[in-house]
């Protein structure tokens, strides 16, 4: 928004409206605005900071009357201790296998479907799109029982394909890809066809390079969604070696005598992969969200 340079000369500077107008025009120090926003941001990240410092804290310091933000004695051994108390390396491995599969599945199939719906006309294309969008009302929480029975029929209980299968394609991802691909001019595709390029080659060489921002968003969100899954693995996994880390973490909390500080250590370890993926794709994610105008 461009700021107008005119200064309000009306008196009564303390009237709320005048103050608001001054803020709107950027007269009142931008420093004040920044301070307010920074305070708000701080409030939002406080729980993340708390989780991190607590994971290095001595367990008896957990419920003191005032939180000790910087541990007087650091306890990095909380991490190896927590990892060794249950099969967490295995649980994290399972979660990684599942989440990477779900992420790749979404990236591949949502791109295909999004492209098919954005740039091809075929009988019933609109109905197909609405059918896909409608599945937003059919998350696993709703179809938990019958989906469990489907997986049971496939004999996929306690398998990776059982945990990942029902998550491989998400309607939201298709929607995201379709909306992004629709804005790519069809002339490019026509020109490539005239030059004799095959349909797959058009997808890979013309469409994909322009979709990197939105694909980054899709990758981050689908990885997070799968990494977060709790109810579904809870329903279909009963063998310890196929547990994902959230199941392990709950069990860890319920087992008597496990210090909550070590639970926080696992929580920190579980947070790192998502943050890392986000940091890795950060350059594109902002553009993918449609925020390129934000300086």
């Amino acid at each position, binding site marked *: 928004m461009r700021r107008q340079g005119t200064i309000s000369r009306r008196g009564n500077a303390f009237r709320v409206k005048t103050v608001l107008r001054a803020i709107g025009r950027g007269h009142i120090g931008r420093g004040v605005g920044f301070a307010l926003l920074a305070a708000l941001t701080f409030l939002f*990240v406080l729980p993340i900071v708390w989780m991190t410092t607590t994971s290095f804290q001595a367990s008896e310091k957990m419920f003191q009357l005032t939180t000790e933000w910087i541990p007087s004695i650091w306890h990095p051994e909380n991490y190896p201790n927590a990892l060794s108390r249950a099969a967490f390396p295995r649980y994290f491995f399972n979660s990684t296998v599942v989440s990477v599969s779900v992420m790749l599945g979404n990236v591949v199939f949502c791109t295909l479907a999004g492209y098919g719906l954005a740039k091809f006309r075929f009988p019933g294309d609109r109905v197909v799109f609405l059918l896909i969008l409608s599945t937003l009302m059919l998350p696993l929480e709703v179809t938990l029982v019958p989906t469990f029975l489907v997986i049971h029929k496939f004999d996929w209980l306690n398998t990776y394909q059982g945990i990942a299968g029902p998550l491989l394609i998400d309607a939201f991802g298709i929607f995201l890809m379709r*909306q992004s691909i629709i804005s790519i001019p069809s002339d490019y595709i026509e020109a490539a066809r005239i030059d004799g390029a095959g349909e797959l080659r058009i997808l890979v060489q013309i469409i994909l390079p322009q979709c990197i921002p939105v694909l980054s968003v899709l990758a981050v969100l689908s990885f997070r969604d799968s990494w977060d899954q709790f109810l579904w693995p809870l329903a279909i996994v009963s063998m310890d070696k196929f547990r994902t880390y959230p199941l392990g973490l709950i069990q860890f909390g319920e087992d008597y005598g496990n210090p909550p500080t070590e639970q926080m250590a696992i929580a920190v370890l*579980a947070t790192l992969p998502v943050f890392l993926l986000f940091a890795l794709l950060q350059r594109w994610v902002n553009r993918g969200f449609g925020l390129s105008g934000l300086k």
Partner: protein
Amino acid sequence: MSYRRWIQFWGIGFVMPTLLFLAVFKYGPMFWAFELSLTSYDMVSSPRFVGADNYFALAADPIFRTTLLNTFVYIAGSTILTTTVALLLALAINTRVPGARQCMTVMFLTNLMPIIAVCLVWRFLLHPYGLVNQLLAPFGFGRIDWLTDPATAMPAIIVVTVWRFAPYFMVVFLAGLLALPEDYYEAAQLDGAGPLRRFWHITLPLLAPVLFFVVVVSALLSARIFLMPYLITGGGPGNATRVLSMLIYETGFSYMKMGQAAAISVVLFAIMMVFTVLQMRLFMRNEHIYA
């Protein structure tokens, strides 16, 4: 095969894997849920047709009625608060004060943190001796038992929900704000309209489709909430924070009443369908805003 047909064929081919997936994992289970909801099934003996008995049993069950009410309260509370906070945050970021973009990125991290970590952390923060009470103490609040008092348990869970989801919708709002045409604002400013009037008469009407989208998506997200009440309060105290998805899980997998659980699923499905239909209508009317 004509060339046009050939291209059509490719289009169908691109969509085909998704259609197969939906048939197996979405629509198939949905129809199966309807069928199961009319039976009594414990996974040991085969399903026995009982007509609408499961639904009658639900209607007579006080726990189900409380749970249904809780679900509505949760959906309404978290949708309204999440949308409001998200919009305010987006407006704050959109002032473009120095550091605004960095603040946005940092706030967005709350949306990326694993939800299980969110629940575990907030369970400690809301503990009677936890950080929330410590921070409120200087303002004259006493020791509040957030999670064990039926009056505060649901509001507490809603606060956690807002903390978790508002930064995501903030980004959606922000994208909407950035797409608004600037000349309206310049004209309004020349006419002497203040920031409040500009917000009310320009920003809000132009942002209406995005606002509607956020409300619907946030309602869909809240309707399926499971882990937050399951882990933070366990549905308690009493049944004060029990929601439908928890009841589905308990009925189906703790009590092995698959037919009854399917009937609850159908109720949850009906709630989600209302919001989805709203979203469809929005989409049909405003397709241009998504493109």
